């Protein structure tokens, strides 16, 4: 378990402070269902989220990012560690006290098809959390629902519809309205746009950014798409096999990654510009979290692994502008295929934003 403290800005305390969080899922076999092992989904994670900031959790499947998010929201019970929210230990809360705190931490789920009750009208779905938490007298609830629907860019008339009448993007807006209904201070968004169409994703990403700024929300954004992360997050935590391997300001981590895993992840991302062949930097696949490798968990796949990596587990230590858990942090340099401006300068990419005053020029030569 890594006990390395995360350096904190001296002037403010984090809203959410996770220390040494562990969640193991038992593997049971045989007639007696004896435990024969454990999937070490989250294996000693320290993480802070400050009020109003967006922290992204990135990693591949099996990295533990979703389990970490769910442990914080207490959708699964952690095995060890502490989760302090506004100074209070969430994991110790029970009953009414837990319910009260739950209002302040809400979750937006990935799949807007399965996260809404198909028999509940949209208005009811959004009203439910208000009623459960007694946030408004019955007479005012409908008004509050209309307000929430408008907030997420839906017409209040949507309240009378059923989920099947809505598109994926509209459903995800309802999911966000539901999460906001209780007036949370922290929103845990677990892959909130992965299930949506490409043309709809940008709408929802913008909505999340807008709401976050407008309502001063703190957000834990769980994602695998690094370009989206860059679009939303202030800081990013990279996870591999249950551990945070790199943590720092988003712009720094993506521009100057220190951990070889982060570098490999960045290099593997396909770029929507022709001419780049995907580069499979990493051979093989992540080992099973039920049997993580010794020493540094990344060493069997690491392009710069040395003997020490197989035996000594690296601690998460300050490197550059952030933290990295690598004995040889910063040694593997990215190839900079992503370094932005290249595509624009070569004229391959049209202007991305802004009104199209020059569509004619744009079309020339096609």
């Amino acid at each position, binding site marked *: 378990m890594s006990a390395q403290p995360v350096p904190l800005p001296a002037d403010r305390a984090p809203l959410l402070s996770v220390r040494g969080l562990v969640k193991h899922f038992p593997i049971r076999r045989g007639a007696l269902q004896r435990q024969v092992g454990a999937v070490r989904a989250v294996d000693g994670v320290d993480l802070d989220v400050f009020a109003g900031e967006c922290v992204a959790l990135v990693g591949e499947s099996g990295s533990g990012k979703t389990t970490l998010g769910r442990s914080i929201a207490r959708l699964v019970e952690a095995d060890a560690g502490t989760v302090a929210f506004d100074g209070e230990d969430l994991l110790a809360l029970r009953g009414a006290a837990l319910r009260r705190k739950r209002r302040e931490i809400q979750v937006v789920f990935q799949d807007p098809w399965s996260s809404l009750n198909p028999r509940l009208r949209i208005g009811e779905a959004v009203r439910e959390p208000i009623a459960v938490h007694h946030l408004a007298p019955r007479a005012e609830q409908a008004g509050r629902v209309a307000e929430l629907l408008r907030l997420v860019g839906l017409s209040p008339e949507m309240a009378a519809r059923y989920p099947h009448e809505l598109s994926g993007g509209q459903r995800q807006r309802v999911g966000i309205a539901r999460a906001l209904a209780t007036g949370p201070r922290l929103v845990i968004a677990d892959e909130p746009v992965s299930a949506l*169409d*490409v*043309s709809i994703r*940008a709408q929802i990403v913008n909505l999340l950014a807008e709401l976050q*700024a407008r309502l001063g929300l703190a957000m834990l954004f769980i994602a695998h798409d690094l370009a989206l992360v860059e679009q939303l997050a202030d800081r990013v935590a990279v996870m591999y096999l249950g551990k945070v391997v790199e943590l720092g300001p988003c712009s720094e981590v993506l521009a100057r990654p220190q951990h070889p895993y982060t570098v490999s*992840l960045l290099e593997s991302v396909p770029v929507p510009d022709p001419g780049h062949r995907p580069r499979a930097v990493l051979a093989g696949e992540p080992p099973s979290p039920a049997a993580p490798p010794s020493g540094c968990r990344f060493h069997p796949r690491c392009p710069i692994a040395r003997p020490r990596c197989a035996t000594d587990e690296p601690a998460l230590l300050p490197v550059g502008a952030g933290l990295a858990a690598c004995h040889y942090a910063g040694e593997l340099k990215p190839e900079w295929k992503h370094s932005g401006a290249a595509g624009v300068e070569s004229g391959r990419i049209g202007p991305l934003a802004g009104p199209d005053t020059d569509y004619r020029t744009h079309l020339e030569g*096609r």
Partner: protein
Amino acid sequence: MAAEPAGARVLEAIPGRTPLLSVDRLSIAFPSGDGWAEVVRGASLTVGAGEVVGLVGESGSGKTMTALAVLRLVPEPGRITSGSVRLHSGRPERGDTSGVELLSLPERELRRVRGGAIGMVFQEPAAALDPVFTIGYQLVEAIRAHRDVTRAAARQRAEELLALVAVPEPRRRLDAYPHQLSGGQRQRVMIALALAAEPRLLLADEPTTALDVTLQAQVLELLLSLRDRLNLGILLVTHDLAVVASTCDRVTVMYCGEVVEEGETAALFAKPAHPYTRGLLAAVPRLGQPAPRGKLPTIPGQVPDPRLRPHGCAFNPRCAFVMPICRERHPPLYRLAGGGTARCFLHDPEVRIVEGIEAAHGVPASLSSEGTPSS
């Protein structure tokens, strides 16, 4: 086609190229209410030998249906209502110009094409691999279904195939069951299975969507190396423009059941000619070039249900360049001066002047003739 306005200039299949696969004006309909709804409408595309063609679109665009129709696998109660799907030898020097019409091929012969000349790779390896048989057994069966070889020879060939798709320890893996393999290895095995009968063409429907990025990069690299080594034609169905950019030679973009743009990948990405393609490309965040927070370019509105296709151009309710004609008439495909085609009235010089979009959109009146309608 009835829906085409009178005098519309509809493109014929690309001339001057002998493709491996040519889909011509394919339409697919599903029962809807008391009639039929066209989920694919007049889609044409080609794939040449050694060429990777991306078929891109969002949900309801008809991309998967189009790919399934190639092998007449459109699920019930869907029907292929018109069009042609031809499979060519890819060797014009042998005098094969017309190829085989797959849509009228007897079912027995078609079964030899499925998994024979045309291999298939799907998003979910679980759907293609049988959990109760070993990898080796399934590969041997697939090989022997299309080639008259002994079991021992087939097993030898199976081992070679696993080595070809870079599965480690291929001989040992032959005796493994699908559940004993990791997700990435299952995907490789499925590709090996698709290659069992030495196909000329591979249909790959979202082959990397279920995979993590590091695995996705490996599988895409594998597909490209197979193309290079076996001169395979690949039709890659995907929603992911980044995957297209990094792997495809040409792209066909579908929207609401129709092909709206087609072109060489580099040209299409540099100068998307259809406003939908352009919006889609802009809406994808690029690593290293973040838009200001909350200001990612978007396409407004929702992806339409193909059963409720808007009148005129299907994209008109979401289009930033919409003109009156777009709401009234269905645009044909226009051939572009720099190659490729686009289904958009912006490429019709007459329309632009007649409709006076200069006034509406601030486009200068001195319009060049970049868009020449094909005849």
